[in-house]
């Protein structure tokens, strides 16, 4: 009896637990207790998310009326295959990073600020999960700001003083992005009189060709592209990722931009409808050009970076290009590729940034010249780096291959052979920048601090290796990820309209 009641409340618990935990961390202000509390909560999150995904796969979408107010009047939490999958991804990443966080945070953040770090971490987690789970356009904005504001603080906690400027720049651009989104939502609200996604999707048909709706689409597109760091709007990302503490970078890089992609997908496919966005309007060529520009320009810039963390940040911009490319193709296979890459990129970037965090723990930085020969001193860490790096390149047998395979198939299906070649071509650029690190780390004699470095404690190695192993496991057997992604793509094309 109690258990079924509890099961009904899962969608609310998914968001409320980390929110409550964040408040507790701030009140307790003891770093060990805060870490234990954060770990417990972040491990409860994947349990809840997986239970909901199983329920969605067997029974169908879950609709939860928050506070008992029936949708569309109250705020609805709605879990279907698309965001169920995303919730699992965010919560699993959030949990895997926690055991790793204890040592890394202790080394990188001042003692009296560590409890606050965990507080902000939980707030950020709550915001991202809330953005993914809600079916209310304005509620999504509020959660977006909760996650963004806590993210700015996480970044500003970095040791480097440039982290402060990076956090400030991100605050300015992130707020502009969120405000553009809320302008779009305001126009839609004025035209349809509702904020509920499902309700909006039904009412928008009557006013589809009106100017405010077109303007709303433009505002939401630009706003979310700022948040997901699509190529010309990516300027906040490299500094933010470079300056943030290792744990924060690993977490933000693998989750934050993904949720922005999800919200864009939700608006494109579920609310505006694929036919309106991709057939009546030139969204495909715009996204396609920017995606391809991201894949090449950001990869080329990545090659010339002296700081490995910064290099991976630019690589993230390039990888976001693959994901938006999948959206731009607007075919079930292309979209499947985009969604699979969303998942896969989180795994490999998580592993890469965590391996770098291990390096930073031992040699105090991530400059490439300081990492000479580190592969010989920290073989286990750098082996994980190489595996995740191969995955980033897209070597067969790793997850990167799976997503690029789907994207290339989607491009060929659309009749764009040249695009398939461009996908392969940009992967070659990844060979160059990952190859540079591998060459320096493994084939040079260790010097300076790198000569005395050793592999980090197991609490940091195991989470890094779980992600690196997942890069191979889901690469060899893509049945689960590609299967769910294909179902998610079908659900998106089916739309919310009954």
């Amino acid at each position, binding site marked *: 009896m109690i258990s079924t009641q509890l099961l009904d409340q899962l969608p609310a618990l998914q968001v409320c637990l980390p929110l409550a935990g964040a408040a507790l961390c701030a009140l307790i202000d003891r770093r060990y207790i805060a870490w234990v509390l954060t770990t417990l909560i972040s491990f409860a999150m994947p349990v809840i998310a997986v239970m909901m995904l199983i329920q969605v796969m067997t029974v169908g979408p879950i609709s939860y009326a928050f506070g008992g107010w029936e949708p569309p009047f109250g705020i609805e939490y709605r879990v279907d295959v698309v965001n169920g999958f995303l919730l699992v991804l965010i919560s699993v990443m959030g949990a895997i990073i926690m055991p790793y966080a204890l040592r890394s945070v202790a080394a990188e953040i001042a003692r009296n600020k560590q409890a606050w770090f965990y507080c902000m971490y939980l707030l950020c987690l709550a915001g991202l999960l809330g953005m993914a789970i809600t079916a209310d356009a304005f509620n999504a904005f509020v959660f977006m700001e909760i996650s963004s*504001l806590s993210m700015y603080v996480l970044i*500003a906690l970095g040791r480097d003083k440039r982290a402060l400027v990076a956090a400030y720049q991100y605050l*300015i651009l992130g707020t502009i992005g969120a*405000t553009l989104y809320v302008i779009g939502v305001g126009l839609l609200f*004025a035209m349809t009189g509702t904020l509920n996604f499902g309700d909006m999707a039904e009412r928008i048909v009557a006013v589809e060709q009106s100017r405010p709706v077109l303007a709303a689409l433009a505002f939401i597109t630009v706003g979310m592209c700022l948040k997901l760091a699509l190529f010309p709007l990516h300027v906040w990302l490299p500094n933010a990722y470079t300056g943030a503490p290792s744990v924060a970078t690993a977490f933000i890089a693998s989750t934050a931009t993904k949720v922005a992609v999800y919200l864009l997908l939700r608006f494109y496919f579920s609310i505006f409808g694929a036919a309106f966005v991709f057939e009546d309007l030139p969204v495909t060529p715009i996204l396609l050009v920017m995606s391809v520009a991201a894949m090449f320009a950001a990869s080329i810039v990545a090659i010339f970076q002296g700081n490995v963390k910064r290099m991976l940040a630019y690589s993230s911009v390039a990888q976001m290009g693959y994901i938006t490319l999948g959206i731009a193709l607007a075919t079930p296979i292309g979209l499947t590729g985009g969604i699979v890459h969303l998942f896969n990129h989180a795994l490999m970037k998580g592993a890469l940034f965590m391996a770098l965090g291990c390096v930073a723990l031992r040699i105090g930085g991530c400059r490439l010249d300081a990492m000479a020969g580190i592969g010989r001193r920290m073989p286990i860490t750098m082996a994980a780096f190489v595996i995740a790096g191969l995955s980033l390149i897209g070597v067969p047998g790793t997850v990167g291959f799976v997503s690029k395979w789907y994207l290339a198939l989607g491009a060929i299906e659309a009749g764009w052979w040249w695009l398939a070649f461009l996908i392969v071509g940009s992967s070659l650029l990844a060979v160059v920048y990952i190859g540079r690190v591998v060459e320096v780390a493994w084939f040079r004699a260790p010097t300076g601090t790198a000569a005395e470095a050793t592999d980090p404690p197991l609490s940091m190695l195991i989470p890094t290796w779980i992600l690196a192993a997942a890069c191979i496991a889901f690469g060899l057997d893509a049945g689960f990820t590609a299967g769910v992604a294909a179902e998610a793509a079908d659900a998106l094309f089916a739309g919310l309209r009954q």
Partner: protein
Amino acid sequence: MNGLVSSILEHYNQWVTIFLMVAGLYVVVARGNMVKKLVGLSVFQTSVYLLYISPGKILGGTAPILIDDPNAVYSNPLPHVLILTAIVVGLATIALGLGLVVRINEVYGTVEEDEIFERSDDE
């Protein structure tokens, strides 16, 4: 000409919104002083409050509390509630932004963006 003037006058609230929006965004882009940028950001956000609130006003509408008059016209309370939330969000953003600027001033000794970038390049 008259049509244009009257269309501007009829929708003056929208024009004010658009002016504030563009002016705010311009200040964010054009100013190098980090505090002034935040002022611009605040103006930009405030324009959105107006965007939500002004279509929510119904002429002759009363507060949405049920009264006996069957012909009563009620205003929609939702835009006001949304904007109350958005104001809190905006407040938090500006507060955090100013907090960051204080820290930047402590560390760099300036809040001018170009001077900060100059100092970062030296290292």
